[in-house]
């Protein structure tokens, strides 16, 4: 595969990019900070142990003007690509977001509006090459309106719906959409927050996501137990959801 990766420097994205590099996929990293992108690119090259260079380009989810140039640079460097992975995004706790309207606005814009705009740019380029895979990280937080993740969850809910729609509209044309819904994963993003049940590490999540990309599964929960948990949560009546703290 030839993969453009937004978010490979951190967390689950880092673990997933390493799995791809080690098995021989060709990678191009886009992101905000050129120094950390460069360090991650070297890391991936050395882990891959081949002569393939991992290129990088500037791309910031807060700056939509950076999307098209970044994807074009990737297409040039890779000679076209057939997979785009987006793991980047921001997190804020419900309490913090409720106190800070500006932070809320930014989170909603980055995690929903700009992520969708980036995906649209990516989708068009994939379609020009008769399809490919678009893998985007949403969250279990978007499956139901829930007390601890009202705001973060609403952006992720929108993103999940968008990805579902893309899948319905373009799968026949060769675009495979993979919507990833991780539960609590121990990364810098969740550092210092109390661990809920089923907390897991980035590596097993990355393995599962890579399998989903290879198969073109439209939705993947990680760890898998969340698929069962969310079936229950989605079927709970509202009066129950109002009472529980989940």
């Amino acid at each position, binding site marked *: 595969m030839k993969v453009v990766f937004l978010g490979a*420097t*951190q*967390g689950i994205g*880092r673990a997933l990019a390493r799995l791809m590099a080690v098995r021989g996929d060709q990678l191009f990293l886009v992101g905000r900070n050129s120094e*950390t992108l460069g*360090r*991650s690119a*070297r*890391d991936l090259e*050395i*882990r891959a*142990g081949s002569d393939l260079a991992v290129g990088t380009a500037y791309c910031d989810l807060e700056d939509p003007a950076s999307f098209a140039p970044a994807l074009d640079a990737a297409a040039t460097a890779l000679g076209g690509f057939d997979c785009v992975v987006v793991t980047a995004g921001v997190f804020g*706790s*419900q*309490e913090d977001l409720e106190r800070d309207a500006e932070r809320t606005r930014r989170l909603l814009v980055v995690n929903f509006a700009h992520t969708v705009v980036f995906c649209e740019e990516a989708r068009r380029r994939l379609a020009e090459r008769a399809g490919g895979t678009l893998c985007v990280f949403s969250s279990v937080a978007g499956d139901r309106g*829930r*007390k*601890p*993740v009202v705001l973060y969850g609403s952006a992720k809910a929108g993103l999940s719906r968008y990805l579902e729609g893309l899948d319905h509209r373009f799968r026949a044309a060769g675009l495979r959409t993979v919507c990833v819904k991780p539960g*609590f994963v*121990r*990364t*810098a993003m969740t*550092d*210092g*927050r*109390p661990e*809920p049940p089923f907390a897991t590490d980035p590596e097993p999540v990355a393995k599962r996501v890579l399998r989903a990309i290879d198969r073109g599964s439209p939705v993947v929960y990680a760890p898998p137990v969340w698929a069962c948990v969310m079936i229950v949560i989605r079927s709970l009546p509202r009066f129950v959801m109002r009472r529980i*703290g*989940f």
Partner: protein
Amino acid sequence: MSTSQPELATKIVSWGGTAVVGRELHSEDLTAITRDVPLARGLGRSYGDASLPPPDELRVAGTRLADRVLAFDTATGVVRAEAGLALQTLNRLFLGRGFYSPVTPGTQYISLGGMVAADVHGKNHHASGSTGAHLRSLRLRVGDGRIVGCSLDRESELFRATIGGMGLTGHVLEVELQLEAIPSPWILSESLRIDDIDHFVAELKASASDWPYTMGWIDCVSRGRRMGRGILNRGRWARPEEAPARLPTPLQRPDFPVQMPGWVLSRPFVRVLNEGLYRVHVPKRKRGIRHPETFFYPLDAIGHWNRLYGRRGFTQYQCVLPDEAGPGAARRLLELLTRKGRASPLCVIKDCGPQGVGTLSFPLRGISVAIDFAIRADTQSIIDDLNEHVIGEGGRVYLAKDLFTRAEHLRRMDQRLETWLAVRDKWDPQHRLRSAQSVRLLGDRSS
């Protein structure tokens, strides 16, 4: 998921089970999280209090997410990486390319930064020295917040003080290490059943020239004529014609499920266990090709084996006795150990070569003995007695394992301490970098 505020303080637990209130900050960006903390912590495998914060500080920088390999020279085997990279990852990455860590302790769940801080040594100390001998350079965040590069040519005083300096001279950010070129990815090993401690020491010394890796397990329950009997393991990298053509596959490990009750370590139980381990080794000499992970890391085969020691936790006493103490030094120590009467299933003996480049590097030419104790009410007094004995023999203890040594004993056992303290004072006059161990052993402030 609760709606409560994020929990700020949890527990930080050492490998031996000592717990303090505190929080490990985690980030891929080590330069960000090392700014205002007294200590950096890798994978938490030091047994004692070396990786625990001082009582007045909650936060330490957890390095394990900072694990990028930054450079690798396929011709020379020099690798540069961030301090949180695990030894297991390093070894698995380069084994198939003909390189391995030049020094490895008995676990691969340690970080590069931790290897530097403890100047880790392994079964090959008599042949290859400790970690410091293979370090090319370090990048540190020193006490005043500056980031400093150091090596034997540049800020060499700081470089040497950091090797074995228990993280107190600077937070290790990056490590440049010379890997060892290996002829094949397999180990050729031999094991021998040894009848008593004197034969053990003699056999270790005799093996040194032909075998880069040697170590012995001692049955420390048996006394008298059989005192110090056990199994000696020795190995070397197999030559290509001796080794299987395939690569060793990474091993999976089961987890030790629960804390064990105290009787598991009672004397009768350990006696039966040790008798079995000794007897089952037939014939007296065995030879074969081994997976490097089973040869170097037998205990890694079971995750959380520290739970064997139950809730009260355990400590390991590791000391080195210099050759100058004479051939009977190991026997005298074992006599004291068996007289103190603490049963332990794990007692390890190793041959050590000359002292390394680190100012406070632990090993010196002689014999190192390590023994695990479950922590009980009398542990402090046992270790006080052992330390008095070791000081009398001209030996010293390994700070990466230590939890009970007194400041006064450390001063008496290590004449190099003054030199090291002077370097530390130069780079960190206010002693911003501290640990629970430095409060105990160096008298650092604790409030």
